[in-house]
C-alpha cells in the first residue's frame, strides 16, 4: 500500500462493510406482512404464526438496536439468566486470563527445562506429542468428574489448551539460543541462574511470546465452547442461552463482541512481543 494514500484502505473497508450490510438488509427485507394465514388458525396458534413467513433472522436495524441496548447498559444483573453482556464477557475474560496465567506459570519453567535438557526433552516428548492434538473439550468430562465444579473445569480446559503452544515454543526458543551467546556466558563464568535469566530468557523471549500469543488466541476460541457446555455464566453461555431464546440479534451482537475482545487480547500480546524483540 502506498503511503501517499493512507485513507484508501480504511475507505475500502468501509465500502465492504456497507456492501455487507446492504446485502444483509435486502436478504432480510420483508414487505408489510399480509395476513397469509387464516385468522381463526392464527388465533389458535398464537401471534408468531400469524405473521406467516416472518424469519427469526433480524434485519441490520434490529441488530443495531440490540447493540445499542447492550452498549448502553452492559453490566445489568437481573438474575441467573438475564445478565448484561459486559458481565458475561468479564466472566469469560477472567476465566481465560486465569487459565492462561496458570498455564504460563507451568509451561514457561517446564519449557525451559525441556529446552535445556535433551534428556528430559526426549523423555517428555511422547507425552507432549500425544496430548497436544487432543481437543481441550475432550478433557471436560474428566475435569467435571474430578474437580466437581463447572467453573473451575472451564478454567482447567483453558489451562490445558493454553499449555501446549507455550510449552513447545518455550522449549524451542530455549533450545535454539545461539551457541555463541552461551559460550560468552561460560567464558565469563556467569552462574547458571544468571545465564538462564540474562542470556537464555531474553534470547528466547520473542519465541516464548509468540507461543503466548498463539495460546491466548486458542484460549479465547475455546472459552466459548467450554462455557456453552458448563453453562451458568460467560459469553459462551450467553450465546447458547440466546439460541434457546431464538434471539439471533443477541447472538450476532455476541459474535461481534467476541471478535473485538479476541482482537484486543491479540493486540496486547503483540505489543508485549514487540517489547522483547531484538534485532541481530
Amino acid at each position, binding site marked *: 500500500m502506498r503511503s501517499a494514500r493512507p485513507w484508501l484502505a480504511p475507505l475500502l473497508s468501509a465500502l465492504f462493510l456497507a456492501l455487507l450490510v446492504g446485502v444483509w438488509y435486502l436478504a432480510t427485507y420483508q414487505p408489510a406482512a399480509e395476513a397469509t394465514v387464516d385468522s381463526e388458525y392464527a388465533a389458535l396458534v398464537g401471534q408468531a404464526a400469524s405473521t406467516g413467513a416472518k424469519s427469526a433472522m433480524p434485519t441490520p436495524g434490529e441488530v443495531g438496536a440490540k447493540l445499542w441496548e447492550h452498549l448502553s447498559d452492559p453490566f445489568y444483573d437481573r438474575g441467573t439468566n438475564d445478565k448484561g453482556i459486559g458481565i458475561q464477557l468479564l466472566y469469560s475474560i477472567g476465566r481465560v486470563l486465569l487459565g492462561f496465567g496458570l498455564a504460563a506459570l507451568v509451561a514457561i519453567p517446564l519449557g525451559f527445562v525441556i529446552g535445556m535438557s535433551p534428556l528430559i526433552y526426549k523423555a517428555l516428548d511422547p507425552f507432549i506429542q500425544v496430548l497436544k492434538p487432543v481437543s481441550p473439550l475432550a478433557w471436560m468430562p474428566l475435569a467435571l468428574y474430578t474437580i466437581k465444579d463447572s467453573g473451575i473445569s472451564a478454567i482447567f480446559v483453558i489451562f490445558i489448551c493454553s499449555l501446549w503452544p507455550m510449552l513447545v515454543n518455550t522449549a524451542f526458543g530455549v533450545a535454539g539460543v*545461539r551457541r*555463541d*551467546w552461551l*559460550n*560468552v556466558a*561460560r*567464558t*565469563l*563464568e*556467569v552462574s547458571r541462574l*544468571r545465564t538462564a535469566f*540474562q*542470556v537464555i530468557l*531474553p*534470547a528466547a523471549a520473542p519465541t516464548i511470546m509468540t507461543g503466548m500469543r498463539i495460546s491466548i488466541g486458542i484460549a479465547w476460541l475455546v472459552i466459548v465452547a467450554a462455557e456453552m457446555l458448563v453453562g451458568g455464566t460467560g459469553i459462551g453461555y450467553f450465546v447458547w442461552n440466546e439460541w434457546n431464546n431464538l434471539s439471533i440479534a443477541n447472538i450476532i451482537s455476541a459474535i461481534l463482541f467476541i471478535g473485538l475482545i479476541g482482537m484486543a487480547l491479540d493486540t496486547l500480546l503483540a505489543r508485549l512481543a514487540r517489547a*522483547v524483540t*531484538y*534485532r*541481530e
Partner: protein
Amino acid sequence: MTQPFLKVEALAKRYPGPAGKPANTVFENIHFGIAKGEFACIVGHSGCGKTTILNVLAGLDEASEGVVIMDGREVRGPSLDRGVVFQGHALLPWLSTLKNVEFGVRSRWPQWTPKQIEAHSIRYLEMVGLGHALHKKPAELSGGMKQRVGIARAFAIQPKMLLLDEPFGALDALTRGTIQDELLAIVQATHQTVFMITHDVDEAILLADKVLLMSNGPHARIAEIVDITMPRDRSRATIHHDPQYYRIRNHLVDFLVNRSRDYAAGAPAAAAHDPRNPPLVRPGLEGGAEVLPLPAGAAPAAPQLKPVSSASA
C-alpha cells in the same frame, strides 16, 4: 628452560569413526608453549583444528588426549582468566554496548558497585574508540564496531590470557587494518599474552611474536614455529620496509601453499619431524636455508593494499 606461561602437551582431538572403523583424528601430538606477554598466532588451512585448539584453551571444548597448563594449573572448563574474542563477535543483541561489557565485568568483580562497573566498562570502551556509542545496540553498529566491543569485553575482565578466534575475518580490509593497529597498541601497552587464529599471513607477521604453522588435517600437527624476528615496535605503515618482512612472509606463504600437506602420515617430512619439538625457524637469519629463492622471472609477492590508518570503521 623455565616452564612457559601456557603449556600445551600432547593435545589430540578424535571423533569416533563409524562402527568398526578407526577414530577420525583431527589433530594429534600438539605441543607448544607461550611465554607471558607473548603474542602467538596460529596459521593453517581450514580443517586442521585451529578453532578446536582455541576452544580447548578456552575450556569450551575438551580434547581427547593431552593437557593444557596455564600459569601452573591445568585448564578445566572456562575461566575468567582467559578472555575470548569470538569470530562472530557474539554480542548479546538485546543489550547496549555498555551493558555487553558490563555483563562480563560484573561477573569478574561481583563485589563492585554498579558505578564502579560502569566506570570500568566505559574506560575499556573508550580504549577501543567507542566512547560515543555506549548506549547503542549491536544491530546499530558496523561490523568493525561490533568486533571492537567484543575486544573491549574481553580486555575489560583483565584476563591472564586473551584468545582470539579469527577476530577480523569478517571485516573489510580498511576496517581490519584500523583495528589491527588498535589491537597492536593495546597489546603493546598491556603486555597481554595472546593466542590468535588467523588466515591472514600479513596480520600474523604484524601482530605476532611467533607464528605456529599447522600442517593439514586430518592428523594435523604443529609443523614449525616461526619466530617473527622484527622489533616489537612495529607499525602497519612501515613494517613492509623491513627486509625481514618479505623473508618471513615468503616463508609462511610457501608453507601454506606448498609444504603444509607434507606432514601426513608416511610423508618424508613427517618422518624427520618431531612433533614434541617442532623446529623453531627464523627465516632469513639462520643458515639461509629458509630463504627460498624466487623462481626466475616471478615477481616478488605483491604487497597487499595498505590503507591509510586514519579511516575509521
